[in-house]
């Protein structure tokens, strides 16, 4: 049984179709990366999966359970096991770093505060942000905020992690500290879907790559296949343009 199964997913924004017949699956612990030009539907796919954008048709199955995105309880169950890290970090501006990481475990998962804080501190240590636990988000750099956001996403023990262009808003010299953090996560058995423009990184950490264009998955396969011998013209074009510099 596949851990995550997406079948014939459609989504529209107004009259524009943002996702057209997207099918994709992932085994437990697999790292699948979505590449493709801006506006190709990578972010929308991730947003649909976590219930922030409604699908218009299609099926999503997680660990054998079909998700009904019109049903609040079903969406709640999805978010219970799935976390997302946004391009713009979206840390709560009114909370300290530590509170950002503990708020969901304490208030949503009803874990004891001491336990949640202990867990949060070990996560913050892992992303190298432990000494900033009492800082507010606006006192941190983009890279630091994004590392806290990763800790926050992990605090609820997700078995699926969505990363939505997490380095696109960062200063170039801050990109690596975030990529290093993610790289360390890929061996933990968490199923990951990564939307990214960092081709070298994606190639290194992914088990599979899905190339998206105009809301469709054009091509999907192992990193070496997609990057070295793409079968589709569109992929070849995109990859060559991106890898040229």
């Amino acid at each position, binding site marked *: 049984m596949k851990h995550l199964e997406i079948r014939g997913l459609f989504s529209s924004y107004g009259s524009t179709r943002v996702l057209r017949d997207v099918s994709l699956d992932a085994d437990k612990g697999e790292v699948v990366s979505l590449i493709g030009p801006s506006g190709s539907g990578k972010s929308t796919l991730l947003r649909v999966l*976590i*219930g*922030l954008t409604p699908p218009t048709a299609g099926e999503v199955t997680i660990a054998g359970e079909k998700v009904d995105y019109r049903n609040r309880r079903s969406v*709640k169950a999805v*978010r*219970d096991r799935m*976390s*997302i890290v*946004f391009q*713009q970090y*979206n*840390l*709560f*501006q*009114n909370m300290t770093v530590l509170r950002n990481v503990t*708020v*969901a475990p304490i*208030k*949503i998962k009803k874990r004891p505060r001491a336990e949640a804080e202990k867990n949060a501190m070990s996560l913050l240590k892992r992303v190298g942000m432990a000494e900033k636990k009492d800082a507010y988000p606006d006192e941190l750099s983009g890279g630091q905020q994004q590392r806290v956001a990763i800790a*926050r996403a992990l605090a*609820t023990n997700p078995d699926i992690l969505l990363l939505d262009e997490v380095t696109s808003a960062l200063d170039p010299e801050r990109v690596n500290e975030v990529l290093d953090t993610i790289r360390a996560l890929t061996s933990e058995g968490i199923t990951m879907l990564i939307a990214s423009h960092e081709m070298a990184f994606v190639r290194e950490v992914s088990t599979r790559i899905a190339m998206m264009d105009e809301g469709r998955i054009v091509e999907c396969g192992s990193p070496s296949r997609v990057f070295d011998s793409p079968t589709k013209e569109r992929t070849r074009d995109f990859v060559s343009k991106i890898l040229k510099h």
Partner: protein
Amino acid sequence: MLEQIAEQVPLFFGYYNVVFILQAAGRTLGMTFVGCSVGFVFGFLIAVLRQSSLPILFLPRLLGIAYVETFRRIPFLVILYIVLFVIEPLMPGTSLFGIATVSVCLLSTAFLSEIIRSGLESVPLPQIEGAKALNMTGLQSLFMVILPQSWKVILPPAAAFVVMFIKDTSLASQLGVIEMTFAGEMLVNRGFSPVLGFGAVLVCYFAMSWPLSRLAIRLEKRLEAS
């Protein structure tokens, strides 16, 4: 004229006059305080209602919008008369102060609701999506994420509104409520110099609104720091 004022001063600041003025000031402050407190609670509820997208709240939401948009456009004096002519036949014997206070509540609910709504809307959408993705309910994200971030947008115009409202309650004198302005007028009619009568009124209004403005500025500074 100065001689006349000097002559009147001891009499003007006699025990009964001072009590009379303080009582009037109490009514002004009472109307403002009760009105704005009630207005804040109901204004908040309407603002939240307008933010919600639940289908079952469609009709209440529509009523909320209609209420806010109507009452923000009616002059306070007209509200006073409407309330007077509705309440008098329904509940005879209601005090004029009560009627004026109800009017203040109606108006401040509409204005404060609009101020609170724009505060709630000032919080960027990604903050709310972050809350959603973490499985917060609408109310949890309202109280833990949205409200704490909207105070600094809500507070300055809300404080300005309350300060302005201390002054606007003077219109209740048209109904016969003996609040600050009416009290000044009565003292002048009793033969005291207008300089003394309305001078006292001026000092009282200032004494009521100045500390409030200062408090608001201090709160703003504290919010800014956090």
